[in-house]
């Protein structure tokens, strides 16, 4: 595996950031950038001219990660040449949130299953129910195939997210990459670092990922009470208080849910994943040190299955909620990951509206996470 990384900023334009320069034609080019940049055909054309034969995947973000730097409105490009591994691609349109499960199945069915070892998904971040998407993928992919990925972002605006495979990124798109062959070693890890506080509340009214009432009271009202004057900046400020969801019917499994949007008229809130009635939720608050420790822990998890040899590439997908909380300290979590996985690994990624990853390094079953640092590591032997 060979990797070349480039950065585009308004101030500097394109610049190489990696020492290595690819002499081969990369099969995969991952591009993470500000939403308006990703929508701008100019930049896609520039990238296409740089990599005319490669598959280019563009994702809008809520912050781009390249090496240990976190930027907004930049373009972080990672071109990957696999020596032995084959990659295949699928893309689908998602009609609306209710199409999430079917979209997951369509994507899974579109990839040839023979030799498939891992899949990475990049999905529209607003018009999707992450839980259903993951369910669709899990249902139709072989159980031996692990899936990681994320719901792409739109800064802290929550207005429009775009994804594209070999075209200018657009709304309502989901792209799935399939990795084939036994020479590719994959690792993954996902951790949060948020603490619950206050009383646990019962979800008394919800539909899919839309939450209406907690303990028979409007959920939006609760958020507004807790946010005070910050409520005017909803939905982004809602990320300061994610919810820990405990599902009794699923062995009391706990997941973190983050807010994607609000509807004043219906007094409802849309979350990145399912908020089932009968589930119990508790507000969560950030603890800086624990967030950083969480990132570091995710790093450790992600290299656990790779053994003593460091990965060549790490894709970091971290939640916008963490960025909003960490603010000027946000790079500390990326640095914490770097410290764990080593200096030789190329790092790129983005701040997302949802992270997709199995809960433990030994598990294959993908799950939707929120408010986590989720890392996928690659090494080709």
């Amino acid at each position, binding site marked *: 595996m060979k990797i070349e990384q480039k950065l585009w900023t308004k101030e500097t334009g394109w610049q190489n950031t990696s020492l290595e320069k690819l002499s081969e034609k990369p099969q995969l080019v991952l591009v993470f950038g500000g939403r308006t940049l990703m929508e701008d055909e100019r930049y896609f054309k520039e990238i296409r001219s740089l990599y005319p034969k490669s598959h280019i995947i563009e994702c809008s973000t809520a912050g781009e990660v390249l090496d240990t730097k976190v930027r907004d409105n930049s373009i972080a490009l990672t071109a990957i040449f696999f020596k032995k591994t084959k990659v295949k691609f699928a893309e689908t349109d998602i009609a609306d949130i209710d199409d999430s499960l079917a979209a997951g199945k369509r994507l899974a069915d579109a990839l040839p299953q023979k030799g498939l070892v891992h899949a990475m998904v990049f999905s529209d971040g607003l018009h999707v129910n992450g839980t259903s998407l993951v369910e669709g993928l899990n249902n139709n992919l072989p159980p031996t195939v692990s899936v990681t990925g994320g719901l792409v972002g739109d800064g802290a605006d929550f207005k429009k997210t775009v994804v594209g495979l070999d075209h200018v990124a657009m709304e309502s798109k989901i792209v799935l990459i399939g990795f084939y062959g036994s020479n590719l070693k994959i690792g993954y890890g996902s951790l949060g670092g948020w603490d619950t*506080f*206050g*009383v646990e509340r019962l979800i008394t009214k919800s539909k899919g990922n839309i939450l209406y009432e907690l303990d028979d009271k409007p959920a939006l009202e609760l958020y507004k*009470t*807790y*946010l*005070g004057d*910050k409520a005017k900046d909803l939905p982004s400020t809602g990320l*300061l*208080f994610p919810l820990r969801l405990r599902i009794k019917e699923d062995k009391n499994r706990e997941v973190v849910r983050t807010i994607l949007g609000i509807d004043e008229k219906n007094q409802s809130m849309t979350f990145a994943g399912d908020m089932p009635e009968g589930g119990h939720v508790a*507000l969560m*608050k*950030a603890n800086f040190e624990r967030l950083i420790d969480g990132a570091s822990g995710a790093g450790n998890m992600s290299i656990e299955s790779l053994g003593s040899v460091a990965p060549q590439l790490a894709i970091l997908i971290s939640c916008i909620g963490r960025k909003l*909380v960490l*603010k*000027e*300290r946000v790079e500390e979590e990326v640095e914490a990951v770097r410290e764990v996985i080593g200096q030789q690994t190329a790092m790129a990624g983005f701040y997302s509206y949802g992270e997709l990853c199995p809960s433990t390094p030994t598990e294959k079953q993908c799950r939707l996470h929120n408010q986590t640092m989720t890392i996928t590591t690659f090494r080709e032997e």
Partner: protein
Amino acid sequence: MLHRILQRQAKKFIGGVENIPQKWNPFFDAISKTYLDFDNDHALLDRSLELSSKEFFENNRLLREAKEGVEKIVQERTKELEYEKKRVEEANVIIKEKNKYLEVAINAKNDFIRIANHQLNTPLSIMKNAYSMVCDGSLTAEKGVEYWGSGLKRILQVVEEFWTVLELEGEVKLNIQKNSIILAIKNAVEDSKKVIATNKKSLEIIINEPDFKIPFVLCDIKRINNVIYNLIDNAISYTQKGMISISYQMVENNKYLKVNIKDTGVGFTKEDKEKIGQKFYRAKNALLSHPDGSGIGLYISKSIIENNKGKLFYESEGENKGSVFSFILPVAD
């Protein structure tokens, strides 16, 4: 505008923010922003914890109230349960009594059938034998008719007694009026004398006249008449020789007139005393001396007296030591 902590530190160390070298401004701005963010975060956290505390307090209050409510309900329910338990226990006692009563009633019914059978069978057997004897010529038709007549009379008497029992156990219509029982007793004694004569018993029957004026009593005289006849009949049946004496007493502050019928007959034991007066009960020595008795006469008498707001008493010193059967009736004003 730098954060106030930075302003104070700048003043302390370099005399004021105006002395910060220009090239250091971005550095100070970054620190200032961090301080401000920290303040904001801290304020948000403080606010959240305060709200959360309030919610906990409120929930705690609600829980406490609910607990008190539950305790109250538990107390009330416990009380109700205790009350219900008591009622069930009382009902059980009643049911047990009713069961006992039913058992007695079933036994009584069986006795009734058994005795009815026996009481009717005896005269019927006599009549049947007489019929056979008339048919084969060993008895004259005239004598046969005599047997049949006496048998029929006995059957009628038995049937009448049973009807009386049934009537007494149902709703009895009484004709209670101010009456004198002197005449009833006199008539009964006179009739009894004839019976004694027929039976050829060495038995005397007398009325001990009291030293007070016998008052009127409230009663259904027709039925009391039956009682008087029955008690005197019994005295004759169970006394072979000696005397039957009838006396009067005023009792219970002169509110009741007591009539005693004393005999020198078979008497009864203490054990028998408890059962005499029950339907169909017959004392052992009564059975021996008068086997055809139904055991129903005294039960009828007792029921009639009680229906007339009186009471029946019986005493005996023991077997063959005679007995006294008495009844009281309320005196008319």
